[in-house]
């Protein structure tokens, strides 16, 4: 166990980028540092997104969601920033913009957004992290598409403490709720599978 801790500490000391302090600050909702992230990094990324065809609102949304992605990563103690924060944010924003373009199939964009974009060693790591976020986004998006009753059951089952209490609240028996939850999960999973198959 100690060996693992030392290994992780050694890893962090070797690869940790000096911008890691932003990650730590994000975790604690440090408003001064969050403002600094906008102040220092939004102009360059905004320029990049606008040059790729995003409008100013889209650029703002993408940057904000990228900061939220970063916050989610920051909550994971094992996350280590190994490149400048600007480069990492740019990767997330680029990926998000590609998704927007692909979703709307707009502007006849046929050339990849990252054509001519120099890849960095961290591209693959960021891509993997983004894939995890997108997976979560897809499940949550499909949750909005299932029947209202099912959505209610699933949301309640992940936010309420006791399923017995939940059944009472909903005016159904516990046995019914148990049966219904698996039906609702099956409905959700079918939608996720369907969406994924269309994305491939």
């Amino acid at each position, binding site marked *: 166990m100690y060996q693992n801790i030392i290994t992780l500490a050694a890893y962090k000391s070797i690869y940790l980028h000096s911008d890691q302090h932003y990650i730590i600050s994000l975790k604690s*909702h440090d*408003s001064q540092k*969050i*403002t600094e992230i*906008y*102040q*220092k990094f*939004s*102009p*360059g*990324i*905004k*320029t990049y997104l*606008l*040059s*790729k065809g995003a409008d*100013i*609102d889209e*650029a*703002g*949304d993408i*940057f*904000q969601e990228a*900061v*939220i992605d970063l*916050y*989610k990563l920051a*909550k994971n103690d094992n996350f280590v920033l190994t*490149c*400048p924060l*600007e*480069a990492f944010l*740019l990767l997330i924003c680029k990926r998000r913009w590609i998704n927007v373009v692909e979703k709307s199939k707009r502007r006849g964009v046929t*050339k990849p*957004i990252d*054509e*001519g*974009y*120099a890849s*960095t060693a961290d591209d693959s790591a960021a891509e993997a992290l983004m894939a995890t976020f997108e*997976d*979560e986004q897809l*499940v*949550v998006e499909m*949750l909005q598409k299932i029947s209202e009753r099912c959505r209610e059951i*699933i*949301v309640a089952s*992940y*936010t309420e403490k006791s399923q017995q209490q939940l059944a009472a609240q909903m005016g159904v028996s516990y046995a019914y709720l*148990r*049966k219904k*939850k*698996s*039906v609702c*999960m*099956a409905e*959700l*999973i079918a939608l*996720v*599978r369907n969406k994924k198959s269309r994305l491939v």
Partner: protein
Amino acid sequence: MNNFETIEAYVEGWMNAAEKAAFEQRLHFDSELRRDYEDWMNADSKLKEHFAELADVAALRESLNPLTKRYFNKEDKKIRGRVISLKKYFVAAGAVAAAAIIYFSLPAGVGDYAVPEMPQAIVRGESDKSHKGAQLFNQEQYEAALPLLKQEAESRPGDATAQFFYAVCLVKLEKYEIALPVLDGLTKGVSAFKEDAAFFAALSAFHLKKHQQALTYARQVGHEGPYYEQAQKLIRKIK
């Protein structure tokens, strides 16, 4: 029980030891059950993460909204198409002969490039001097902007935006020798200005008669970038 009811019973711990063992056994040879189980576990973990973070993310979003509004406001336009026409050089020269000299000293059309607008947001909250530098740059008062942008670039060596606009200012003032190393650094970095810097580096190298170097930089400008056409013109001119 269908697959999903069985999976729920397993993950919720409603099975006895024998049922649990039988389920685990089935997972090895029943590929449909395994697929249902994996998809259930994936959806379950994503929902857990989502709902666990929901309140935190909502609070963060609340605090980010005003910042997003401030730094991405409607007044920020696309890269401004402020084209510097060669005509103004011709007028300044005041004679056909002088115009011809200028024309032949520049690669055809590469003098007509859009100057990016320097985001003033970058210096918000910083010193008045650096704010003034961005203002002067955007007003095309490059001589006046240069010392302020230089100071900004020197005090923030890791800030790609500061480096880029300092270098563009140098290019506008034809100080190619000084601009080139700054731009070269940006082309080797990972900032959002990488490709735009490659165009200005190509232009600088061209004016310094370092044609091979200019070609290398020009080829780094991607199709999607605002300077792609200009970079292609430069390549054609050198060849």
